């Protein structure tokens, strides 16, 4: 079967603030080899309803203010669709806050 041919890889997800609360801590997710940042974000959002709400707008678009990091480097929102991840990578996600 084709499905079985496709290998999975592991990506570590460090979530902060509300997103961490929604996910319940850090995660290691299995995604198909060559998956993009967008694909990973969809998988993170799929872990729970709160996680999905913390990451995505009602129309399914990524919330623009969420800070995305890949192996300790900032990733722009526009790059998420093309940035491919590798086995063992670490992604950090931080939804900033606005109060005083």
């Amino acid at each position, binding site marked *: 079967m084709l499905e079985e041919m496709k290998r999975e890889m592991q990506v570590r997800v460090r979530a902060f603030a*509300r997103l961490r609360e929604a996910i319940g801590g850090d995660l290691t997710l299995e995604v198909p080899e060559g998956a993009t940042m967008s694909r990973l974000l969809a998988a993170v959002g799929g872990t729970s309803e709160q996680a999905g709400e913390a990451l995505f707008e009602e129309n399914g678009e990524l919330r623009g203010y969420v800070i995305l*990091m890949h192996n300790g*480097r900032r990733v722009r929102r526009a790059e998420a669709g093309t940035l491919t991840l590798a086995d063992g990578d670490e992604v950090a996600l931080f939804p900033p806050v606005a*109060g*005083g």
Partner: protein
Amino acid sequence: MLTDRELERYRRQVALFGEEAQERLASARVVIVGAGGLGCPAALYLAAAGIGEVRLVDGDVVDRTNLNRQVLHGDRDVGRAKVESAAEKLRAQNLEITVVATYATVDDGNAAALVGGADLIVDAADNFRVRYILNRVALGARVPLIHGAVRGFYGQATTIVPGLTACLECIFPVAPPEEGIIPVVGTTPGIIGLVQANEAIKYITGTGDLLTDRLLVWDGRAATMTTLPVEREEDCRACGNGRCSRR
């Protein structure tokens, strides 16, 4: 020159960074925008540390719902201008310093005048509209800006040195959403406000490593503090190439 009384008052920190650093604190002017959850603890500790001039800017009055976190205001201050209530406590805390209270809401038109002459701006505002204005003014005047923000058990802080480090719009090109009532426990702005005050003391005295190009993230539920690396964006609308096309 510091008086004998000042030397006695600041003895424990002079032991840490020396008399010359204390003199720098005594001649520093710090503008704190916001006399709320972040501004109260930041102002109190900066006053206690002997910042020569603490200028508070806020256009709000004290509401009873502020009292769980805005620790310079008490029940008897409800209805008073926050800057007046806060300035009174700061003057009582330290007779050696000057406290200036400005009852005004920062906007595009008055921001440059309100923060004019400052050595340092503390962003203790409660919304990103004002924060972006402070960022532009700080960049224009080349005055460092110390950012802090909170919600719930979560907070963030960073130090911006114009021309050298990532600015507020490099780090937050899109503002987090505005909320009507932001839930918050008082300890969160207490912790972040003191991180901001600590940055101000370090900047003025030239001590330690600043929170530049780093975003400090506090999680009060997990009791963890982390810093995430951030960097200047070339096409930033406020400090990069992108600014010509927009303004």
